[in-house]
Structures are given as C-alpha cells and as structure tokens.
C-alpha cells in the first residue's frame, strides 16, 4: 500500500522534472504521501522535524557547480533584499511625511512595494529555494494555554472564547 504511493510520488516528481516547475504540485505530492501513512504515524512525524518540512522540489535553474558568477537564485535574492530595504525606508518616509497627499502617495507605494516583496518571496518558494518548517502542534497548544491564562490580566471585560 505504502509502496504504491511512494511509486506514484516518484512518478510525479519525474514528470515535474521534465515539465519544469509547476508551482505547488510538488508540495502537495509530498503531503499526499504523508496522508497515506495514516493517522497512526502522525505523532511520530511530529517528533521528527524533517517530516514537518514544507518545501517544493528545487528547480534545476542553478548550476551544478556553484561559482562566483551570479545565478538566477542570487538575482531574485538580491531583488528581494532590495525590496525589503525599500519597504523599510518607505515606512519611515510615510510616517514622517507632512501633508496628507504626500503621506497617502507614499503609503500607496509602501503597500505596492510590500506586495512585490511578497511576490518575489512566493516566486522563490515555488522554485524550491525556501524551506519552511511546521511547528509542533504540542508546542502551539502549550503556548496557547499559557497566553490564554494571561487573560486574567486583561484590563477590559471581554467574552472568553
């Protein structure tokens, strides 16, 4: 049963290699495999951090032997760094601007630059150049309880969830 899924997964990856990178499919294939393992293994997966990795297969855009020459990933990385720098700078500009029209104009550029930063980040994720790791559910639950407990310190009366 498991072997079948593994074969399917391998097939999927192979097809992707030929077609180039097709967005999120690689990741879904990976998750599909995890799903096939069933609920029994879920706890085991959580203990093994590597199983929690969220990533796409690496695109084959990078040279096999990396040298001093700037490659595609370097280019997007530099572009991303540039956008990050500009969002930081525009943030200060928008805050310090005197009249409303200037403030509004800079705020619009600020939002647009953030949106572009996000696009570049998503692009890098699609190309398999960013790996995320899902935090263990247990840790989330622990912190949720802890901070939920601090609600006794709230200065306003609210409906408890």
């Amino acid at each position, binding site marked *: 049963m498991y072997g079948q899924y593994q074969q399917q997964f391998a097939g999927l990856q192979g097809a992707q290699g030929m077609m180039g990178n097709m967005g999120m499919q690689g990741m879904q294939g990976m998750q599909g495999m995890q799903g096939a393992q069933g609920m029994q293994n879920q706890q085991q997966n959580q203990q093994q951090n590597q199983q929690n990795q969220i990533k796409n297969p690496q695109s084959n855009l990078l040279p096999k032997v990396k040298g001093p020459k700037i490659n595609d990933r370097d280019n997007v990385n530099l572009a991303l760094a*540039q956008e990050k720098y500009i969002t930081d*700078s525009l943030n*200060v500009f928008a805050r310090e601007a005197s009249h409303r029209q200037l403030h509004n104009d800079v705020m619009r550029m600020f939002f647009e630059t953030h949106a*572009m930063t996000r696009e570049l980040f998503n692009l890098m994720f699609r190309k398999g150049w960013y790996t995320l790791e899902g935090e263990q559910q247990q840790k989330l639950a622990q912190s949720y309880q802890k901070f939920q407990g601090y609600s006794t310190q709230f200065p306003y009366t609210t409906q408890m969830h």
Partner: protein
Amino acid sequence: MYQTNQQQAGQQIMPEPPNVVSTKDFLYLTDALSWELGAMKMMHHAALNCTDPEISTYLHQAGQMHQTHYQQLLTHLNPANAANM
C-alpha cells in the same frame, strides 16, 4: 505682544498641514527618488541576466513598479504642480 496675539487669534486654525513640501519632506523625497532609481536599474539588470523567463518577468515587473513610483514621487518636486506651492 498684544498685537501678535490678536493676529494669531484672527488666523484660521489649520486642521492639518497644508499641501506644502516641508524641508523634511524634500530630503525624504530626494532620498526616495534615489532608492527607486537604484532599484529599477538593479531589477532591469537582474532581469536581463536571468536564464528563467518566469523570474525575468517578475524582475521586470518590479523594475517597472519602481519606475512608476519614481515618476509619482517626482510630481511632488515639480514646481509646475500647484499643490507643491
């Protein structure tokens, strides 16, 4: 002393700053123009040096955005623009 007080009393209170480029605005504007110019050139250069057409498209889009922002910032410096007076 009394006179100046009277003058101030006669003046209308401005609810928010008028459309005037302040000294500080001016310095930020010239700074921001440099950021945008540098960014558009950098994006354009990077786009030309990419092998992947998808990446190239995205970088060109980013470059064009910075060029648009440059032009929008420039209107705030234009003396012909009545709002800047």
